[in-house]
């Protein structure tokens, strides 16, 4: 560190510094050029003045903001509840599908049908079927609140996706990990719980959070069964004023939640890579 460095090495260091500066400059220039061209393309379009009035009106943005903010709280609550339910359902389904126990065969078949069907049906369809179909059954114990019907619909749909992500994680853990768990005398279940699942969950954390990012915005689908969440509140405002700015405002709310989640996912991925590379 403190030792004197040769003149040639100083030249090399100067070259690297220059190269870094050039790289930063190239990055900045290309960013300005690309974003500038995109912005110019939109602003110079023939309908821009009209679009600006109907979609980006400051007055309407301020007017609709408190209504949408209040309604968005419902999206947050839905997201938090459904996220927990999805994890429980998905873990159960994934474990049932990997455990090689013959007694579980009917459940394995059901679990397979469940993931196949609910990954195949559009989420909006599931929302409509559960939201309007469940209450019509008139079964005792079926919740009548739209909140819980919506939560069940999203859980059914997302549970199938997340179960497959978890199952992929479990299958990707190397067989030698199972072998060394069993060799220590751990049962199949204990090996799964203490050795395999922790590694599996860490490995699939990025796609798992990816699904939760998606879930967060799909809470807006529940507007279809009449829940007054952010999108519904924005539509109501739009219907009253014939101005679409409120829809854009509700989009900003969703983005404000998904962007931090997305960055968190990136960070998890980078950290996992670093851990593997280190040591």
């Amino acid at each position, binding site marked *: *560190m403190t*030792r004197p*460095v*040769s003149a*040639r*090495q100083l030249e*090399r260091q100067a*070259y*690297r510094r220059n*190269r870094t500066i050039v790289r930063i400059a190239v990055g900045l220039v290309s960013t300005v050029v690309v974003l500038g061209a995109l912005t110019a393309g939109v602003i110079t379009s023939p309908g821009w003045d009209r679009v600006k009035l109907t979609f980006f009106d400051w007055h309407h943005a301020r007017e609709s903001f408190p209504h949408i903010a209040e309604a968005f709280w419902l999206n947050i609550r839905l997201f938090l509840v459904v996220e927990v339910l999805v994890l429980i359902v998905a873990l159960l389904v994934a474990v049932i599908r990997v455990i090689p126990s013959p007694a579980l065969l009917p459940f394995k078949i059901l679990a397979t049908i469940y993931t196949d069907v609910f990954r195949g049906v559009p989420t909006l369809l599931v929302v409509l079927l559960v939201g309007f179909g469940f209450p019509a059954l008139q079964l005792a114990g079926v919740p009548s609140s739209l909140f819980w019907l919506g939560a069940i619909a999203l859980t059914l749909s997302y549970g199938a996706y997340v179960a497959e992500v978890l199952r992929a994680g479990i299958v990707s853990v190397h067989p030698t990990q199972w072998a060394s768990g069993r060799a220590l005398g751990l049962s199949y279940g204990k090996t799964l719980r203490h050795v395999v699942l922790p590694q599996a969950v860490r490995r699939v954390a990025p796609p798992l959070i990816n699904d939760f990012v998606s879930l967060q915005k799909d809470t807006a689908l529940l507007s279809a069964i009449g829940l007054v969440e952010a999108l519904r509140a924005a539509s109501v405002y739009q219907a009253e004023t014939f101005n679409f700015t409120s829809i854009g405002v509700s989009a900003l709310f969703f983005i404000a939640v998904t962007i931090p989640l997305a960055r968190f996912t990136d960070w998890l991925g980078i950290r996992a890579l670093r851990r593997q590379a280190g040591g």
Partner: protein
Amino acid sequence: MLTIRGLTISFGDHVVLDALDLDVAAGEVVCLLGASGSGKSTLLRCIDLLEQTDDGDILLGGVEINDPAVNEDAIRRNIGMVFQAYNLFPHLTVLGNVTLATRKVAGLSRREARERALELLARVGLDGKAHAYPDSLSGGQQQRVALVRAVAMQPDLLLLDEVTSALDPMLVGEVLDVVRDLAAAGQTIVMATHEIPFARDVADRIVFLDGGAIVEQGTPAQVLGNPQDPRTQAFLARYLD
């Protein structure tokens, strides 16, 4: 062919190579000996431009290759490197591993690359495994494939980083036989190793490293038969028991 002057590199406060000088002539086989942490692997990694050096010059054929302005890919094209852990590409067959660089970097046609690969694989007794995947091979077989993969590019200089350290004793011989043949064919080799009998047999020169510096170097007879430095003596005493 290879000239190193004042090569210095630290990781944090730890000086791994300390103003090291080394010359390797064309066709020469140089074995680097030394305890773990003496800087053997780091030296090889520096020559292959895998580490950013703190000071010193590395010249290959008179060209300063650690100049940050050089095209590293063009330099590495003339240097082969084989690692302790084989590092074969698991998604490619043996043939796919060996022909990847000769096709995509050296620009050989599919047929030329295939012919060269099969000829080299035959020389190491693995032409029958051309279509096998690496995971189905033994460690010794995998390492022979890794050697063939490096040699297929016909590098001026071949760097071998403890290529037998991950192998059990039964398999060490089959890999060293390949290295011995390469040396006999005139390949310039710099090799970090713990196989002292092999080094005695094949090396033109043995370089003993300790604490990131060359303690002693010379012919195998000099360094192994009559070590002068107490550190070399202590190291050899432990290995040759």
